[in-house]
């Protein structure tokens, strides 16, 4: 496979082919054994006559709406952790490292989702720039409690969307983010001192729904975010369904 076939500017394959650090990240993501084979297949899938045969295909409209919705949730998370880090509340805490890691993960999710929206021909939603000042003023316990809930909410939101995604590669991207949100949720709920489950509170606890995680549809997610983040609801309601 010639790398010159992998030439769409801004495309994932293009970045992998032209940017050594992207390629390194991909190789890490694709795992140890058989990585070279996977990369070869990947490059093979990108070039050749594929694009010529598929001129008539249009993107599933729903996927764009879902990716933009995910992007909005990730914007909120990034904004939240930015404010938390700026507050200095955890500056001396052993949790600082975890919060920084999660913040950086969420930023990577924002970048990947925004670029996916663009690749789908859409316009990425704007960062709602939500204000978390009120929660932060209440101190570290309140912040940790909200972080725990937000991550459980995020994981549940992705879980609800996954079966609705049509394009296999967007599904795979969503799954690779979904499980990381699950990791964040468990880590933060555990750090907040919450048990595995809290009776009657499906968004509290490190494994809050027992062996099978529960999905939360878009309306429920918006409703839960509304009291904290009134600006969010309008943004999401305007997003394509």
């Amino acid at each position, binding site marked *: 496979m010639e790398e010159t076939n992998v030439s769409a500017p801004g495309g994932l394959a293009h970045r992998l082919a032209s940017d050594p650090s992207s390629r390194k990240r991909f190789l890490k*993501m694709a795992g140890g054994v058989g990585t070279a084979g996977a990369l070869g297949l990947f490059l093979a*899938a990108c070039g050749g006559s594929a694009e010529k045969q598929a001129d008539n295909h249009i993107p599933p409209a729903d996927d764009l709406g879902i990716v933009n919705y995910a992007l909005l949730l990730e914007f909120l998370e990034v904004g939240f952790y930015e404010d938390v880090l700026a507050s200095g509340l955890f500056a001396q805490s052993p949790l600082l490292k975890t919060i920084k890691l999660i913040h950086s993960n969420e930023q990577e999710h924002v970048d990947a989702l925004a670029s996916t929206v663009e690749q789908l021909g859409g316009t990425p939603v704007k960062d709602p720039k939500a204000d978390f000042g009120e929660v932060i003023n209440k101190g570290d316990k309140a912040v940790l409690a909200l972080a725990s809930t937000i991550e459980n909410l995020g994981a549940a939101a992705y879980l609800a969307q996954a079966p609705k995604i049509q394009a296999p590669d967007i599904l795979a991207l969503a799954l690779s983010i979904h*499980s990381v949100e699950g990791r964040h949720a468990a880590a933060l709920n555990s750090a907040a001192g919450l048990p595995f489950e809290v009776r009657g509170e499906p968004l509290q606890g490190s494994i809050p729904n027992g062996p099978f995680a529960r999905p939360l549809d878009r309306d429920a997610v918006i409703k839960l975010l509304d009291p904290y983040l009134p600006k969010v609801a309008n943004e999401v309601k305007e997003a394509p369904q």
Partner: protein
Amino acid sequence: MSPLTREAFLLRGALAVGATYGAGAVSPFVAAALGQPLTTDVTILNFALNLEQLEAAFYADAIDMAPLSGDVLRLAQKLAANEQAHVEALTSAIKGLGGDPDPAPAFSWGGALDSQASFVKTAVQLEDIGVSAHNGAGPMLQDKKLLATAGSIVQVEARHAALVRALDGQPPTVAAFDQTLTQPQVLELVARYIQD
């Protein structure tokens, strides 16, 4: 069920995506899926079942045989119960599709149950592999309802991974995106625990 073969289905998806984004955007995930030897939903679910059988047996044996105490024992008991529930759910999903659930193979743990530390390290490895295996197989599922089940299981695996990683002093995740593993990659990684 679509009359298309899975390969044709996936290829069609990949081509559509390639056309939409302009050839350059077909993600590595699709290529990994195309490289999978998994060809039917029953095969995929049996692969997931084998991993859950491995994890369920590991935690059950650890509770019986490993010198666990305190938080580690408490977590092992929780994980054992969750993995057993996953085994049962996948078994019944396979039967629901008219398939035959694979029987659990015999496992051997080497020195993994000798100490609390070795138990935790092995648990981290198994949970991380489980997440990557489920994420790799998920896009191959043809029946979207099965994807909801698989998703509800993989999220719990990810939570397990973060919790055992915390016991091992490791961060909850190594990257912003969980890596995907194909079936052969997974089998190679867990081969040491499966008796011939």
